[in-house]
C-alpha cells in the first residue's frame, strides 16, 4: 500500500511568554496508507488540533518531519501539497467563503486556476457526491450545519484530493447533521477509496475508522483498531474520553452481574446479544 502521510518524531511547542514555551506535540510518529481511515482522538488540549495544523502546513514542526505523499512538507512545496488535500474545519459558518453553494465549492478551484468549463463539471460532480445537487444557488444562511459541512466536503472533493482531513468537523453539529456528514464520508471512502483523517473527541465517530490514534498531553498514548482501543476502557476514561454508548451499557450490565459474551462496539451488536441471550440456555 502506498504511503500518504507520515509523521516522523514530530514535536512542536507554542511560545507562551518570552522564555517559556508549552509543548503541544511531543515526539509523534505514525504512518497513513492509501485508502485508510484513521481517527485521532483525545480530549481538549491533547495536541490533536496542533497535529492538524502541522499536517496542512499552518505550523512547521520544531523537530521531526511531516511527510506528505512521501515528500517532506516545506515552505516551498506547501501550496502544491495543499492542492492535493482537502480540509474541513469545525465551524460550518466560518469556512464558507462563497455567497452561494456553488460559488463556495468553486473557491478552491478558482484559486488553483482551473479553467471555467472544467470547473462546472467538478462543481456539479462533487456536489452530487455529497447529495447537495439540489442546493446549487442556496445561500449559506439558508442551510443547516450538516448541509454546510457537506458543502465544505464538496469544496474539498472538487480538487480531487488524495487525502481528506476532518478537523472536528462534526463537533458543532446536531446529531442528525453529524450522521449526514459521517455517512457521506463513509460512502466516499467505500466508493472512491478516499484516505481520511478524522480528528475528533467523539468516539462513536472514531468507531468507523480502521485505526485509532489516542493522543494525551501531546504524545501518542495508543494506536490500534477500534476494538483494541476500546478494550482499554478505564484508561480512556482517565484521560477524559467518553466510551461509545454500547460499550458503556455492556460494561454497566456486566457490573450488575449479567453475563455477556464478547465485546460490543455498536448498539446493534449489543441488541443482538441481548435478545438472543436466553436462547442457548
Amino acid at each position, binding site marked *: 500500500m502506498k504511503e500518504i502521510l507520515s509523521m516522523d518524531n514530530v514535536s512542536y511547542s507554542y511560545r507562551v511568554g518570552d522564555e517559556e514555551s508549552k509543548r503541544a506535540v511531543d515526539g509523534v510518529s505514525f504512518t497513513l496508507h492509501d485508502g485508510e481511515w484513521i481517527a485521532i482522538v483525545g480530549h481538549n488540549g491533547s495536541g490533536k488540533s496542533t497535529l492538524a495544523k502541522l499536517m496542512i502546513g499552518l505550523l512547521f514542526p520544531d523537530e521531526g518531519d511531516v511527510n506528505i505523499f512521501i515528500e517532506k512538507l516545506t515552505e516551498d512545496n506547501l501550496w502544491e501539497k495543499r492542492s492535493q488535500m482537502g480540509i474541513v*474545519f469545525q465551524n460550518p459558518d466560518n469556512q464558507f*467563503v462563497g*455567497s452561494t453553494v456553488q460559488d463556495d465549492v468553486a473557491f478552491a478551484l478558482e484559486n488553483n486556476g482551473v479553467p471555467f468549463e472544467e470547473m462546472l463539471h467538478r462543481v456539479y460532480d462533487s456536489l452530487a457526491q455529497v447529495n447537495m445537487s439540489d442546493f446549487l444557488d442556496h445561500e449559506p*444562511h439558508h442551510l443547516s450545519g450538516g448541509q454546510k459541512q457537506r458543502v465544505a466536503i464538496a469544496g474539498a472533493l472538487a480538487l480531487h484530493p488524495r487525502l481528506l482531513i476532518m478537523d472536528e468537523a462534526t463537533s458543532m453539529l446536531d446529531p442528525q447533521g453529524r450522521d449526514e456528514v459521517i455517512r457521506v464520508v463513509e460512502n466516499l471512502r467505500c466508493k472512491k477509496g478516499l484516505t481520511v483523517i478524522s480528528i475528533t473527541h467523539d468516539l462513536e465517530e472514531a468507531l468507523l475508522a480502521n485505526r485509532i490514534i489516542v493522543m494525551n498531553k501531546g504524545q501518542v498514548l495508543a494506536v490500534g483498531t477500534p476494538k483494541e482501543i476500546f478494550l482499554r476502557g478505564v484508561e480512556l476514561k482517565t484521560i477524559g474520553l467518553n466510551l461509545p454508548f454500547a460499550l458503556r451499557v455492556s460494561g454497566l450490565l456486566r457490573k450488575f452481574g449479567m453475563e455477556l459474551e464478547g465485546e460490543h462496539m455498536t448498539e446493534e451488536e449489543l441488541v443482538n446479544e441481548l435478545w438472543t441471550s436466553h436462547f442457548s440456555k
Partner: protein
Amino acid sequence: MLEKMIFGRYIPGNSFVHRLDPRAKLSFVFLFIIAVFLANTAMTYAILVGFTLLVIFSSRIRLYFLINGLKPILFLIIFTLLMHLFFTKGGVLLFEWKFIKVYEEGLRQGIFISIRFLVLVLMTSVLTLTTSPISITDGMEDLLGPFKRFKLPVHELALMMSISLRFIPTLMDETDKIVKAQLARGSDISTGSIKQRIRAVIPLLVPLFVSAFKRAEDLAVAMEVRGYRGGEGRTRYRQLKWHWRDTMVMALFVVLVAILLLLRG
C-alpha cells in the same frame, strides 16, 4: 427584522432589465446620472421622466417597492423644493405673504431639481432591485479591471465586498442571539433615556466584535488552506456574458443623450 430590510432590496425576477448584464446596467446608470444634468427645459425633463417610467415598467417591479425606497429621501426632495421656492429670485412674483415671496423662477427651479432627484433615485433603485448584490460586485470588478494598472486592488476590493455581503446574515443571526442572551440577563435596550439605551448597546457590541474577529481569523485560515493566494493566476467561476440586448441598451443611451442635446435650451 433586519434581514427583510436588506433582502428587500433585491427582487429576483426574469424581466428584460433583470436579464441585462450587470456591467451594462452599472455603466448605464452611471452615465445616466451624468446625462440627467443635460436636461434644462420642461420638454427634456418630461423625456427623462418618460424614460424612467419606461425602465420601471420593463423591470416589472411593483411600484410598492419603489415608493418604499423613496420614503427616506422624500424629506430631502421636499426640502430642496421649499428652498428653491423661497430663496430663488427671478421672473414674475407669484405669491407674497408677509416676508415670504415666491417667484416664477423659484417654482420652476424647485420642480426641476425635485424631478432630477426623483429620477436619479428611481433609476438607482431599479438597478439594485433588479441586480443581486453578488452580480453588482462581479460587474464592478470587471468594469474596474483597467484600473489594476494603476495599482488599484480591484480583485481584493471585490472579494472583500462579496465576503461582507455573505457575512451580513450570519452576523445578524449572531446579533439576534446576543440580544436575547443579554435580555435574559435583564438588560433593557428598548426603554429608558437615550443615554441609557446607548449604554445598553455596549454589552451587545463587545461580544459581537469578539466573535467577528474570531470568524475572520477562521475564515482566513480556511481560505489559505484552500489555496487562496490573491488574485494572481486565479480563474473565475462566475462568468459574465454580454448579449445583444446589452449593446442595445448602450445604444439606447446614445439616442437618449442625442435627444436631450437636441431639445435642450
